[in-house]
């Protein structure tokens, strides 16, 4: 048996069980991240802008992409709702926010790490998700990878104008 063969057998015997053990022991599953609730910080941020959390409803058959409703409280002449859907994986709920609760929204947009955009920031989210995987391997804290789809039911409420830098809250 050659030296190289002996080294490879040793490597296989050590690294193969170890690699499989690492896969089994790591409990984070990307699939489970579909269901992301609205955080208390997010609710507090909208409350400071005159929007009170009302309830959350299913938009599809599963529990993913639940829409959270926030009701206007400050302006008496404006009864409107602001809808929020957290989108942690990809853009598949991009158009759900355009019709939350099956009614076309007056306006909708996306917020990702403080930046507001009309289209879903797929590439930016992919970059953060990829970086998070590496950070996860090194046990470093992960960056926010959740895109928030925001819609309003009436023009009298303008969530686009909010200071969406949620990390600063």
């Amino acid at each position, binding site marked *: *048996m*050659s030296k*190289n*063969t002996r*080294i*490879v057998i040793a*490597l*296989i015997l050590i*690294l*193969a069980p*170890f*690699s*499989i053990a*690492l*896969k*089994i*022991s*790591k409990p984070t*599953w990307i*699939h489970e991240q579909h269901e992301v609730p609205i955080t208390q910080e997010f609710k507090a941020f909208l409350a400071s802008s005159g929007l009170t959390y009302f309830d959350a409803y299913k*938009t*599809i*058959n599963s529990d993913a992409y639940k829409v959270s409703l926030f009701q206007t409280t400050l302006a008496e002449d404006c009864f409107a709702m602001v809808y929020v859907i957290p989108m942690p*994986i*990809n*853009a*598949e*709920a*991009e*158009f*759900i926010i*355009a*019709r939350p609760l*099956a*009614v*076309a929204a007056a306006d909708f947009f996306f917020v990702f790490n403080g930046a507001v955009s009309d289209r*879903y920031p*797929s*590439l930016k*989210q*992919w970059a953060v*998700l990829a970086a998070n*995987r590496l950070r996860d*391997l090194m046990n470093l804290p992960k960056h926010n990878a959740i895109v928030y789809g925001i819609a309003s039911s009436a023009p009298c409420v303008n969530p686009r104008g909010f200071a969406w830098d949620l990390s600063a809250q």
Partner: protein
Amino acid sequence: MGIDNRSFFYAVTIAIGAMNAVIKPAIHSIDHDGFWSASFNLFNVHPVMVGVLLLCIALIYDRRDVHGLSKKDLLAITFTLVGLLIPSATMSWLFIGLFGLYLASRQSITPVQRSGAVILLVAGLREPFMTFLLQVFNSEVLALDATFTALLLSAFQDSVTAQGNMILAGNTVRLVVLTSCSSLANLSFAMLFWFAVSRAISSSISREMLVACGAIVVSMVALNIVRLTMMASSSAQYAIIHESIGKTSFAIIMVTTVSLLTVWGLRNVEKHTDSHRAHIDSGTV
């Protein structure tokens, strides 16, 4: 089996890579659905991937291989095994693909082993490539499915339109096409199956096999659109098609269609080769 046979260690490395790639989704499937339900869904591991990896091992392992492991082999196997320590199924697939690339670049392997290496490269890179594609171009991919579905559904129902990945009938949302329902996800497995069979049989892909590939693409998209149309047509049909019996039936139809079309392509290659030989024998070529 000689223990100094390098192809044995190639095969073992691929097998370890395959286990690393499938163990996480398999355990997740058992954890989520329970053992028996997970086994019914083949533990969340696509049968095409299992078949293709076994084919790669069968093609690469050559008991008559007289070569021992070189320093390059040692480095490549070490690189792969260290890469597999990363606790990510996608990264495991990537390292399997890179190992395939290394094997395909070896001058001293047989043409059969090279076919196995090229198939391994494509099978390994499929997962990271599809992850990227379905993440970055998700809207476009799903919108395409929704557009075709709305077109087909509009033949039977009034005022059906597509808005992004949603299919609407008037103001009512009939169906939201999600990533797991996209034609592209199924198509990638179908194309991998076709490529693996084509490359295992011949080192070059003939015109007849390319025609079969075109037929597979059209039929996969068409079958998925029909399925989505049936799901969008009524909630009763949605329940039947979306649940496990409908899901399994659809998977069987898909696999059967791809297999039949691949066999059809191979038969055409044989026929073409036979008629070419007959022409040569009769002196017309």
